């Protein structure tokens, strides 16, 4: 066997003088594209976004026999229409960047549907190599594919591969490079759409050719097809860039209408059906099914249980419970460990460095911030372990299937359950997990409401308040508030769907892929990607934000000689503290005083800080009572005995804490996931507004009804 040298390289470097071969990887979801990409590139993947959109772009550069080869992973899609961001991104990439070759990954056991995408890539006029993946599964099912014959019919070389074992990967790479370098032919013909469509197609190409600059930029064959399909993005490109756009569009419209009359069918459907007819013909000649059909297959056996009408939901909840438990019961002690390490580090620095602003910046600002970033890491690692397991086995779509009805009633998707559930532990990984939602609108709405859940940081604050003011019904009220988080999330999601994100609901049409064993390598790579991405992108923002919040809550300092007594601490003199005091008149409507105001402002840094800030404001010295539970206990006592506080106020406060501005880490995560601070600001704004209205409503109504005592 030939040995191949591979080496990772950045974009610049000593190879600049050599020609870079660019290979784009395409394929349906569930075609095993990720395995092939991983097998081809290993760990040298670079993750970014396609320009201008938040569609994830993975790429990698390797060297093969001294040649530089770049792989670009296109989003997994079923088609290349203009209805989703992923599809437009794929098309535009091929049209604008003109990769040397596209390697399309196909599931051999399901060739008909996977060739449908391949044909659409072929229409773009770029050389293609087909990877007949999962050959092993096809063999086991008795599916025989004559790949040479198939290649002859479609004009494309095909290679048989097994992504999980790496079989055929070397050959695939070889063939792809040969095609890229022009040693091997590909895409010499395109499919014949039938006499009538071809006539329309030729006529449109003739008009398109009038603008030579435009013709050189885009494949005319593709443009003509898209005009016949009434593709909105293609029409937009023509209107903007073609010299004689009005003529082209009117010719296209004329032919389209003629076709629709002849077929008594919409043009998009006519073309789609022609593609399927062509594929059907090709498959008839090249694919044979031999031997035994095995009755009920493995997938169906499992689905009979997990998709059972009555067992489906309990099984799903059980699986989520296990993942939740694993993530948080294993992750929290690790997170605590990290947190303790950083506390020690900051104590050490306090001793070494002379006291002053620098020491405080390092210990309270930087180390606290870095610690804050890293404490999320174990939870994120474990969470993505669980999620890639669900995704790679194929269970994720089943989860959506069993949960969709309930969620759909509130304008959400069945998969929204996952970010919701994770957010009851922590909203930061919860928002990351919203990637299971492939549709952007679903994802935005889910992300906007996920932080309304009671998370691990709100829970101790609520528990403390419940214990202080409702000692007799503590459990009931606590779980009532927990449920309140879910209900609010559902209703606000519904409101968003009917106002900000109204309009056509995106289709639920979704494949339920056969169950497959996940590859450990893929799962680990996935965990690694997500975690390093979190540290690099979110981590820096969280760190910067924590330093800013620390500054707001510590400066300016209290005058030197002030006795650190009841309410006369650094916090009260700080910007945050002054702000808390100045908004007291407004807070009064909800029954809150300035101490609560300051604590709530501090709570934006992290919700658990609400308790410790109250502790400081009540003059509980943290050094004496370093035990967290002790602070809890003392704050509880102080609150209980404060004559200004009533159970009614406490109730309004709990509701306020549940809803108001998510912590800074969550807001940073939202920015990272949705690509703009606009969404973080919107989230902070709407939650604050809703929280305030509800708290005031509760307090005022309650007072009127005489609960204010």
């Amino acid at each position, binding site marked *: 066997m030939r040995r191949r040298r591979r080496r990772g390289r950045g974009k610049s470097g000593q190879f600049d003088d050599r020609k870079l071969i660019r290979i784009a990887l395409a394929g349906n979801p569930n075609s095993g594209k990720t395995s092939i990409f991983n097998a081809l590139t290993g760990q040298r993947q670079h993750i970014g976004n396609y320009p201008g959109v938040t569609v994830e772009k993975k790429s990698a550069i390797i060297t093969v026999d001294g040649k530089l080869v770049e792989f670009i992973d296109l989003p997994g899609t*079923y*088609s290349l*229409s203009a*209805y989703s961001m992923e599809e437009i991104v794929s098309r535009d990439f091929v049209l604008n960047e003109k990769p040397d070759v596209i390697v399309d990954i196909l599931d051999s*056991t*399901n060739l*008909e*549907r996977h060739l*449908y995408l391949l044909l659409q890539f072929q229409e773009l006029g770029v050389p293609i190599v087909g990877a007949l993946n999962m050959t092993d599964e096809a063999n086991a099912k008795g599916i025989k594919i004559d790949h040479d014959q198939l290649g002859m019919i479609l004009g494309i070389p095909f290679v048989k591969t097994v992504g999980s074992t790496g079989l055929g990967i070397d050959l695939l790479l070889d063939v792809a490079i040969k095609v890229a370098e022009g040693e091997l032919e590909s895409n010499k013909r395109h499919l014949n759409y039938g006499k009538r469509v071809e006539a329309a197609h030729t006529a449109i190409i003739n008009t398109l050719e009038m603008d030579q600059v435009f013709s050189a930029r885009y494949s005319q064959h593709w443009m003509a097809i898209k005009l016949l399909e009434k593709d909105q993005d293609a029409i937009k490109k023509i209107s903007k860039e073609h010299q004689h756009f009005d003529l082209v569009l009117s010719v296209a419209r004329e032919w389209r209408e003629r076709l629709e009359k002849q077929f008594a069918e*919409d043009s*998009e*459907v006519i073309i*789609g*059906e022609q593609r*399927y007819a062509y594929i059907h013909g090709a498959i008839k000649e090249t694919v044979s099914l031999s031997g035994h059909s095995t009755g009920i297959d493995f*997938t169906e056996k499992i*689905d009979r249980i997990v*998709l059972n*009408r*009555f067992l*489906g*939901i309990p099984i799903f909840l059980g699986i989520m419970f296990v993942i939740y438990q694993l993530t948080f019961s294993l992750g929290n002690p690790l997170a605590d460990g990290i947190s303790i390490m950083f506390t020690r580090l900051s104590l050490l620095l306090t001793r070494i460095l002379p006291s002053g602003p620098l020491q405080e910046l390092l210990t309270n600002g930087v180390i606290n911030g870095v610690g804050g970033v890293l404490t999320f890491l174990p939870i994120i690692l474990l969470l993505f372990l669980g999620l890639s397991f669900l995704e790679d086995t194929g269970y994720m*779509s089943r989860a*959506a*299937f*069993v949960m*969709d*009805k309930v969620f*759909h009633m509130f304008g959400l998707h069945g998969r929204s359950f996952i970010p919701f559930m994770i957010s009851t532990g922590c909203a930061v990984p919860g928002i990351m997990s919203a990637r299971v939602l492939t549709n952007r609108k679903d994802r935005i709405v889910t992300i906007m409401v996920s932080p309304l859940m009671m998370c691990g940081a709100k829970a101790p604050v609520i528990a403390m308040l419940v214990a202080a003011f409702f000692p007799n019904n503590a459990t009931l009220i606590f779980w009532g508030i927990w449920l309140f988080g879910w209900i609010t999330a559902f209703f606000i999601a519904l409101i968003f769907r*009917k106002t900000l994100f*109204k*309009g*056509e*609901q*995106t*289709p*639920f*049409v*979704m*494949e*339920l*892929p056969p169950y497959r064993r996940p590859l450990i390598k893929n799962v680990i790579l996935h965990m690694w990607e997500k975690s390093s991405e979190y540290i690099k992108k979110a981590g820096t923002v969280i760190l910067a934000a924590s330093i800013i919040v620390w500054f707001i809550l510590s400066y300016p300092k209290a005058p030197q000689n002030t006795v650190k007594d009841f309410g006369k601490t650094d916090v009260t003199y700080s910007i945050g503290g002054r702000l808390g005091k100045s908004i007291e008149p407004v807070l009064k409507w909800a029954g809150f005083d300035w101490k609560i105001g300051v604590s709530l402002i501090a709570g934006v840094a992290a919700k658990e800080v609400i308790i410790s800030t109250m502790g400081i404001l009540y003059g509980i010295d943290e050094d004496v009572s370093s035990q967290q539970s002790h602070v809890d206990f003392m704050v509880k006592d102080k609150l209980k005995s404060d004559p200004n506080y009533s159970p009614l106020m406490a109730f309004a406060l709990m509701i306020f804490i549940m809803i108001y501005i998510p912590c800074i880490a969550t807001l940073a995560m939202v920015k990272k996931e949705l690509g703009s601070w606009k969404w973080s600001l919107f989230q902070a704004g709407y939650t604050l507004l809703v929280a305030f209205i509800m708290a005031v409503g509760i307090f005022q109504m309650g007072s009127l009804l005489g609960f204010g005592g």
Partner: protein
Amino acid sequence: MKWLLNNRNNGLDFNLKTKQTDDWVRHLSELDTESDFKIIKINARGEIRRRLLDIGFIKNQKGRVVRKALLRDPIEIEIKGTRVSLRRSEAEFIDVVEQD
């Protein structure tokens, strides 16, 4: 209240439908579990029609209703050798005849 009507208007033209419907043709959403069917027509428009087309719902295509979720929504369909899940509201767009 406009939003309540929105879903209904998505490409489903009731007048047109009744004209073409005879006794044999039913909506895919009306079929029982385990029924085999052949597609007669897709009445949807826009994205939903395109998605159905892309996943294999075309005229004369045969398929089978595999199962339904708890509240009979969504439903699982076997088509072109794949299992696909559809909401009831989406299956209403698909006219089928039952096969034996």
